[in-house]
């Protein structure tokens, strides 16, 4: 087991999340993809912390989790508000600003 394995897994999960953000259109699923990307970066942080033999990477992963929690709270509140006014959770729906 080398650190490379963990970093490759993290990269795969991150690109799956990025792909989902482009591909899916339900706003909640897009949010889940953001969470997946944050988790992938956390995995990289923890793997590098182990490689360097100090705990700072784990501290950063911890702060990432806190920020992700705050982000989810506000983001989901915004989705609920959008759903209330537009009766839809699709990210393509508010496309009136095009052109």
């Amino acid at each position, binding site marked *: 087991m080398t650190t490379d394995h963990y970093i490759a897994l993290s990269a795969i999960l991150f690109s799956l999340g990025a792909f989902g953000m482009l591909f899916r259109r339900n706003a909640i699923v897009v949010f889940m993809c953001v969470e997946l990307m944050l988790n992938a970066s956390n995995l990289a942080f923890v793997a590098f912390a182990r490689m360097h033999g100090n705990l700072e990477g784990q501290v950063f*992963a911890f702060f990432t989790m806190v920020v992700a929690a705050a982000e989810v709270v506000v983001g989901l509140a915004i989705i609920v508000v959008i*759903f209330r006014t537009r009766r839809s959770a699709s990210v393509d729906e508010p496309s009136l600003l095009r052109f």
Partner: protein
Amino acid sequence: MTVTLAAQNAGEAAVFWICGALAVLGAMGMLFSRKAVHSALFLAMTMINLAILYVSLSAPFLGMVQVIVYTGAIMMLFLFVLMVVGVDSSDSLIETVKNQRAPAILFGLGFGVLLVGILGQGTRDLPVGSLEEANSVTGGNLQGLAELIFTQYVFAFEVTSTLLITAALGAMILTHQQHYEPKATQRELSQARFKGPHPSALPPPGTFARHNAVDTPALLPDGSVAEISVPRPMALRETPVDRVDVEEVDEVAAGHDIVVDELGAATDDTSGEER
């Protein structure tokens, strides 16, 4: 420590390959399941597997936080919001933005290849290292993390608390519904009711031998279905109106000496004793 280093490495490799594969499978399931609830459950699976990986990477505290905060709190918040927004809000297959899907697939694949390729170039055979020393200085993983958070990163920690409070306030303000007109009084409500088509209470849903759910419509004296007897949210769910089988009612009535007259109204002199 009775476990040899080789056995430890083999165990870690097994955990990595099993949990890593399951995490990737969960991520794929999240991407390709049509219903948002299934996506949420698949994501929870990915997160639990990542928590196991954290523990095997000698980060037991982060593993526990991952389970409690991510799968326990954040994913449940997602499920709550799905409940509000509508569980069956699945993606439609019609493209609103023209020709968006093919470039999305292309960019997604390209990004993945690029990322894995760059990382493969940059990090080749990096040692896995060990946290034993860092963990043992202060007596454990949790103690070591606590020392770092509350000394070197204490300002960042305080800022995060501000961020959390701001996020909580923001969520409350965003989801707060404002009343733009005063709430209707009881007097106004009753006046509106007497002006409307139904001054009395609406008929209750039907109670039959085989069905007594709230979405079972009652029958009118002529045998037709009284749609008004079903609550409106239930009716929106495409209630099977033919759930009440008039022939079945007749059949049951025939077996019980119930006299069903031409209008379908039943007179039964034994029903009082049966109950």
